[in-house]
């Protein structure tokens, strides 16, 4: 379905409406004509041509140069017939020609097919004939000159404008088509990537499994495969880019980047959309918490990051399976002025209007729970 179709429909409507106008004018301005009967013959021809050309233009393939040329010639002939039909007096006072506004049809058709330039050419050709029709009877410099030029100038403007709109629509249509093609291509690429990723993951998981079981050097290979597997899975399990509406980002996608063989990032299936600042700051706080785990619990400690979208707030829990923190140790650290945990984590979250709580029990690891409000409170 072409975007130009509405333009053609409007031209058809314009042609028929202006035809009615011409009929009404001819009926009431009987006195302007020397050969009133012949004027009706011209009107009859215009009706036949309007029907024929509207039917023809309805099919895009038939909008040929030949037909467009014929359309223009017919309109000009009908216009020039006015010279033979109207009285000299009528033309003196600048009466409407027998075609009235119907003569604009071809200019509009040219504009739609050929753009602003073609529209202008057709409008100038028709406009010249309109002026010629008057010129034989009026001096160039006269009081009526301005009104004589009104019609052709409006026609020229209409031709240029419609042509311009038509060009814009053609461009928009092409852009739309291109976007659709790109979307289809990227969908296909995504589908292929999924299949390939899955195959690679299968192999990596297998190498990890077999290697770990075989032990020795193979275990090292298995461990490396396991790391790559975790990294690749983190990359693909984020369900594509989130709808980037009004500067919001998907927290899940950002946090999933922190996943590794030792750090599992657990998120809901739907994107968790937050303001860009909230996502950046929360991600930084989570990174700081993971660094703490590395620092305090050693390189082999596992950690889990759980994203829970509670609606008005989003909570992120970071838990490790380390030895945990002794009661009062956190308060001591704060008192000693070592605010690593408090500041890098809770400072950022507090700036977002949220809260950070650290809890720990010996043997059950340490848990940092961040709560970030959906709409950040003004600081």
């Amino acid at each position: 379905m072409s975007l130009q179709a509405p333009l053609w429909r409007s031209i058809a409507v314009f042609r028929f409406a202006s035809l009615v106008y011409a009929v009404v004018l001819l009926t009431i301005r009987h006195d302007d004509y020397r050969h009133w009967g012949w004027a009706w013959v011209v009107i009859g021809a215009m009706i036949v041509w309007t029907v024929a050309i509207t039917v023809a233009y309805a099919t895009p393939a038939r909008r040929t140069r030949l037909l467009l040329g014929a359309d223009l010639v017919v309109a000009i002939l009908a216009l020039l017939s006015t010279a033979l039909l109207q009285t000299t007096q009528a033309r003196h006072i600048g009466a409407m020609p027998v075609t009235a506004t119907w003569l604009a049809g071809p200019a509009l058709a040219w504009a739609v097919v050929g753009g602003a330039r073609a529209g202008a050419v057709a409008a100038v050709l028709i406009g010249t004939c309109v002026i010629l029709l008057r010129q034989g009877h009026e001096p160039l410099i006269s009081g009526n000159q301005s009104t004589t030029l009104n019609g052709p100038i409006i026609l020229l403007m209409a031709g240029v404008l419609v042509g311009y709109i038509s060009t814009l629509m053609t461009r928009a249509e092409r852009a739309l088509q291109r976007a659709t093609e790109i979307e289809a291509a990227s969908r296909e690429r995504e589908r292929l990537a999924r299949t390939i990723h899955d195959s690679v993951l299968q192999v990596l998981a297998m190498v990890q499994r077999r290697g770990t079981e075989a032990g020795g050097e193979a275990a090292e290979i298995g461990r490396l495969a396991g790391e790559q597997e975790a990294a690749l899975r983190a990359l693909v399990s984020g369900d594509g880019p989130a709808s980037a509406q009004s500067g919001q980002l998907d927290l899940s996608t950002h946090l999933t980047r922190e996943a590794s063989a030792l750090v599992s990032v657990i998120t809901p299936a739907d994107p968790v959309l937050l303001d860009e600042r909230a996502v950046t700051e929360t991600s930084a706080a989570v990174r700081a918490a993971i660094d703490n785990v590395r620092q305090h619990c050693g390189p082999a400690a596992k950690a889990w990051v759980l994203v829970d979208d509670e609606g008005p707030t989003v909570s992120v829990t970071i838990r490790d399976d380390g030895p945990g923190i002794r009661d009062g140790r956190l308060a001591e650290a704060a008192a000693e002025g070592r605010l690593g945990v408090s500041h890098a984590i809770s400072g950022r979250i507090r700036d977002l209007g949220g809260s950070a709580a650290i809890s720990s029990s010996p043997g059950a690891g340490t848990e940092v729970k961040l709560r970030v409000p959906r709409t950040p409170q003004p600081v």
Partner: protein
Amino acid sequence: MDVTDGAAAATESSTRVMIVDDHPMWRDSVSRDLTDAGFEVIAAVGEGTQAMRIAASVRPDVVVLDLQLPDVGGVDVTRGLLSAYPAAKVLILSASGEHRDVLGAVKAGATGYILKSASRTEFLDAVRRTAAGDAVFSPGLAGLVLGEFRRLATDPAPDTPRLTEREAEILRMVGTGMSYKQVAERLVLSHRTVQNHVQNTLNKLQLHNRVDLVRYAIEHGLDTGPASGPASGPASS
């Protein structure tokens, strides 16, 4: 493939397992692990349609299912398998863990989900628990189920399932890598109670999904009588 003899076999010999995985490498490896542990591997197939076709005749207790199959989507395979042989328990064994697929399969009736990167011990334990009728929740699955309930919480319909405070608390703990045992200790509950709470969240989702499917079928005039299972319904979610 027959049951191997030995001590281990005695405990697992009654468990019939079907493996559905398009990677021959994984099919063989999983099959060997299960057979070594004494399970009875009754079928190992590479295609979803084939699995659905033979499910009723081989009557598996547990289906170990890879969601990425070449012919049918994971959600549809789960639904088709359970419709062909409702007594089966489906354990998802996936490499990529695509969120939507996993959640869809669980809503369609799968009762467990484990990544292929899990160790052999973890895997065998998961099969054992699935056969016993327990839900096998990895942290990832707990996060997905929690997320799904959070999404449903915004749905005002009265029959939408809700989480109790306790269930949400337990899902959050499982989602941060805690074992049922650790959760039970922390909350001073029995292991069984924790298991029941987790199971309950899954049942609620699956029931809701079935109700949704039936409603969809009735609304679209696909209701062909009470005998037809949800497998004849449309692929939702």
